[in-house]
């Protein structure tokens, strides 16, 4: 666990000025910022998207870059990799959450898919193939930084949503 934390890349989109992730340019710039973090032995990428406006059409521009970092890393690093997405958005089920973040992902599905159940299946398959876990953590928007616990987690592979205890 300690080893994993040492190789974690953490990006806070809001603090770094990427607030309007519902816009193409801002999403593209965040993607570039993530890609610039490329280094060996990355085991965890944490992307804090809280307080950022999101749009599913553009989320692949930065999330695909985060997945690529982990996929490339998985070639020379043993063990599971993890993509943590921190957000305050919650649609209450894994399908719409998969839609918001991965519906147009080239990395996960090599194209677009308008059936959200299929999107979930494709994410699960991608995770299993590349040894990557994806965890969407939903936080109370007023939680204090550093002391917060997610209220809900949506986990791939597994297609389950579980209430944090």
């Amino acid at each position, binding site marked *: 666990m300690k080893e994993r934390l040492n190789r974690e890349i953490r990006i806070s989109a809001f603090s770094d000025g990427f607030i*309007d992730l*519902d*816009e193409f340019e801002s999403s593209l710039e965040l993607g570039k910022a993530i890609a610039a973090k490329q280094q060996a032995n990355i085991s965890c990428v944490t992307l804090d998207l809280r*307080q*950022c*406006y*999101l*749009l*599913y059409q553009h989320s692949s521009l930065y999330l695909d870059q985060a997945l690529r970092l982990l996929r490339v890393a998985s070639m020379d690093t043993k063990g599971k990799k993890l993509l943590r997405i921190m*957000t*305050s*958005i*919650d*649609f*209450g*089920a894994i*399908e*719409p959450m998969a*839609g*918001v973040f991965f*519906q*147009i992902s080239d990395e996960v599905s090599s194209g*677009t*898919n*308008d*059936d*959200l*159940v299929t999107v979930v299946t494709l994410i699960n398959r991608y995770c299993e193939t590349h040894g990557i876990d994806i965890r969407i953590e939903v936080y109370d*928007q*007023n939680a204090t930084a550093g002391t917060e616990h997610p209220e809900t987690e949506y986990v791939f592979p597994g297609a389950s949503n579980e209430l944090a205890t």
Partner: protein
Amino acid sequence: MAKGIISKPYQIKAWSELVGLNPLLKAHDTLPQGKFARLNLDFSQVHQVDAIGLSIFLARVVQARSMVSDATITIDMPTSRAVASTLESLGLKMHLARLGLELSLEQRLFDQIDDVPASAQKCLLDEQLFHWETVVSIRPGQGDRDQLISYAKREIKNFLNRDEARRFVHEQVMIILLEMVKNTFDHSGRPALLGLSFIESSARKGKFAFSYCDTGEGISRTVRHHIKTLATQSGRTESLDAIENELSSEKTKHLIRLSQNGAFSDILHWALQPGHSTKSGNGVNFGLGLMYIVEGSRKCGIRLSLKEADSMWILTQLSSPYSHAEIRRFGINTCSPSLLMFFGELEYSR
């Protein structure tokens, strides 16, 4: 040389309390179809106005205006300066122009008002600690789709960003509202109006509310048409397997029955199922579908209602999986004229 006949303008009167859902009570203005008309928007009796009320009223005006092929429009402003000032701050003149309701004469709108003491409008505002509101008008076909959606996003963000204390989840509200805006472009193609309102009293209790009125055909007709298309496609599919063929035939019959004879509660039931969206496969807007608008609203504490045709549902009162019985139970018939409207309220105390 023939002299033109000057007829009296058709009066479209604004409800005197142009606040909240009150304008839904106004009868539909039936104009003679397909003819030139002179319309006068009469605000003279208005003594209270807010963004929700104005957006609903303007949607009703757009519906009436669509009955005639051409029209000149004039306007009577309220006698109260405070009310006129609120209309000005809500951008009445700009919205009329954006909605294709340009005034025929260069009226000096906000100079017509008698300087009378401020009415109930000012009292209403004085009791509130924080209060801001805005109206966003959307008119598909009048410019580039992406630019028009960007305009709507900008306006919604300007509104949300004023809530510096972040009393509710802005980014989730944005996704829900934007889904409605995109539905207007992808299904209705007709003008829509979004009213946004935020009020907090000194007791640190507050309410965020929105109304989204789409002046198009509504969910019922769009879904019926879509189901009919599905039935046609399903009927064409043939399989070598006899059981599959029988199931497909039953499915086709069911879809045809639904599209032709289904009540709106049946249509709503179809639209609320996961994965059911009339947008599927259009390659432009994949969308989340109605179910996720409802679940997304519920998750962030919004009480979401839907008005369609002459009925109204509090959608967030329904629980998933949505049953026919429950949908029928929570539907309320109204005497209000047909209008597709989402209405959301989020109340909180700090």
